[in-house]
């Protein structure tokens, strides 16, 4: 019976040890404010995820240098959601249930964000959304616990749509990433374009990670639009724009897109292919504001010289606004912080930003930009009130 008993004991020990190991060191050091950060750090959105993480680090270290908030410093725990919803849900659950974070920040992929919103709400944790743009996040899927610091496909559409129809052309073809963000971006823009007298002559969607766009380009060429509007992001948009250019399609078609198309994480890789592209953004790093200058100076230290874009800027804002809200509420308790966040205004690098209480969407100005020689030229501006759009959140 000797070896048998030994085995049983060993086996049980492994099982219990394994389970126990996962409990991890119980964080009795609630002297810090723990932020759980979810971002895509691998795959096609990795470059966006990096911007999110760099800016959050910058904000946290800036706040900690001043002693943090309510006498407590911030601590970050980061997880890679791989832009994959099931993985995002698991990581978010782990951050909340195992790492016992106080607040959740993330993420980039709208599909992941929509899922982790449910997780955050289930566990009654505040979620700050720094990048995702799908309209549903603050419309039909809105949540009391979620605050969107980034823009919104609808805001983008309101900012650019009318201008495009007046200045670029009437016949529009759309290509988008085949998930919430891409589809939302196309749907909202198509609506605005049509309302302003434009025509939607076709739409096509490419799965995330599509590498060869030849068939899509064939369809686009066959449709012969005046303007191509695209809602692709990350590496996909780099490949698409490069391939679009190498097939000579830019000569016949004007190209506009959601801001993911021109942000600093993709622009260098596209080179000359990006010339003349038009987009709308809430932020360019050349904005002449003192808040922006300090932000940019600080940011490049975290990013190895890469210039900030609207993703990094919003991620930075998210942390700063959270700190402001905690200060205002004088508490970490969810209900009080939510109340403090609603209606909060902040002098951000991008301009003045306010969180609308009704749907937790930040309202901000939009800039219409065109790329020339790798640089942004601001060719138009729409103020927050013009682009805001209605509050379509009915859940709280």
């Amino acid at each position, binding site marked *: 019976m000797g070896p048998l008993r030994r085995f049983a004991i060993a086996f049980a020990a492994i099982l219990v040890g394994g389970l126990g190991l996962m409990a991890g060191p119980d964080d009795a050091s609630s002297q810090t404010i723990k932020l759980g950060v979810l971002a895509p*750090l*691998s*795959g*096609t959105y*990795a*470059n966006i995820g990096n911007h999110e993480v760099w800016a959050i680090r910058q904000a946290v270290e800036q706040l900690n240098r001043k002693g943090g908030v309510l006498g407590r410093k911030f601590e970050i725990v980061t997880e*890679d959601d791989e832009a994959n919803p099931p993985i995002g849900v698991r990581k978010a659950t782990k951050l909340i249930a195992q790492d016992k974070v106080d607040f959740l920040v993330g993420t980039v992929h709208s599909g992941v964000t929509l899922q982790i919103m449910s997780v955050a709400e289930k566990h009654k944790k505040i979620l700050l959304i720094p990048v995702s743009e799908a309209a549903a996040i603050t419309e039909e899927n809105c949540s009391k616990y979620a605050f969107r610091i980034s823009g919104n496909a609808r805001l983008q559409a309101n900012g650019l749509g009318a201008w495009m129809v007046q200045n670029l052309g009437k016949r529009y073809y759309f290509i988008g990433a*085949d998930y919430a963000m891409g589809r939302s971006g196309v749907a909202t823009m198509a609506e605005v374009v049509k309302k302003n007298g434009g025509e939607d002559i076709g739409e*096509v*969607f*490419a*799965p995330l*990670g*599509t*590498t*060869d766009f*030849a*068939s*899509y380009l*064939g*369809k686009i*060429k*066959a449709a012969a639009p005046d303007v191509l509007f695209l809602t692709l992001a990350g*590496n996909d948009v780099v*490949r698409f724009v490069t*391939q679009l250019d*190498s*097939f*000579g*399609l830019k*000569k016949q078609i004007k190209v506009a897109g959601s801001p993911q198309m021109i942000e600093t994480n993709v622009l260098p*890789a596209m080179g000359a292919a990006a010339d003349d592209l038009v987009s709308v953004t809430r932020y360019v790093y050349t904005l002449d504001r003192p808040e922006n200058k300090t932000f940019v100076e600080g940011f490049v230290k975290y990013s190895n010289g890469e210039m900030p874009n609207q993703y990094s800027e919003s991620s930075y804002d998210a942390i700063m606004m959270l700190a402001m809200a905690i200060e205002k509420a004088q508490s970490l308790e969810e209900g009080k912080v939510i109340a403090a966040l609603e209606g909060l205004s902040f002098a951000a690098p991008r301009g003045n930003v306010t969180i609308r209480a009704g749907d937790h969407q930040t309202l901000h100005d939009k800039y219409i930009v065109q790329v020339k020689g790798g640089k942004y030229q601001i060719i138009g501006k729409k103020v927050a009130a013009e682009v805001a759009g209605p509050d379509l959140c009915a859940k709280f």
Partner: protein
Amino acid sequence: MTTFLAGTLLPQLLHGLVYGMTLALVAIGLSLVFGVMHVINFAHGELLMVGAFVGFTAHALTGSFWLALLAGGAAGAALGGIIERFTLRPLYARNPMYLLLGTYGLSLVLVEVARIVWGAVPQKLPPPFELSVHILGLDYPAYRLALLAFTSAILAALWLFLTRTQAGTIIRGVAQDRMIMEALGVNVSRVFTGTFALGAGLAGASGVLLAPLVAVYTTMGLDVILSAFAVIIIGGLGSFPGTLLASIIVGMVESVSTIWIPPTSAKTLTFIAMVVILLVRPAGLLGEETR
């Protein structure tokens, strides 16, 4: 009607041809290995991926695309040889299920090893030339047309190797009848290792050739392997002409059908075709009805 033909159909046919040839390029190594060893190498995509990464590193160090191509092919072949000798050879005597699963397990390991060595961020490998050629009313990237030429050259070279050289003849002999070849004194184990290495080398080279189109990233093998399986099944397991024919047909059909249906649905057609072939004529279009 003529504008449809010239403006839409012809370009899509051209796309289809180019895409089909890239499929053939990827699938040919797979087909070779199955034909000779009766193994479907689930790690084929990962050998392609490792070749692409080695090529990327070689290019980063030397700036030469051609050196990258050589490096990628060589790396693939070397890795393939090692894998066959140490992980597959022990499995030949056992239930064939384990051989299949063994290559699947290797694919998992290789993806992770690549991630550890090269990182999770996709990398760019620029083509050797960036010109565009004006045909059929559009500017067509010359590199894509060059791929047509490369693939044809590789297929032709492979064909010549298999039919005109002694090594090639031995390989074909082993494919036909292993036991007789053994009786004739051929070291079949070594032929297996060599063939697998050749298939892996082809995979690595195809990785480098595809990289300018699709970028270099750890899951690039997964993205192509299922289509490669479809193509070798539709063409007929073990048949080279079958693989080539199926690749071109699949490429053309997927491409042309995108005129009417979304590209993702076009891909579904390919797998439906794979199911149909397996049910109706498992030997495929040009395969032999032996098993």
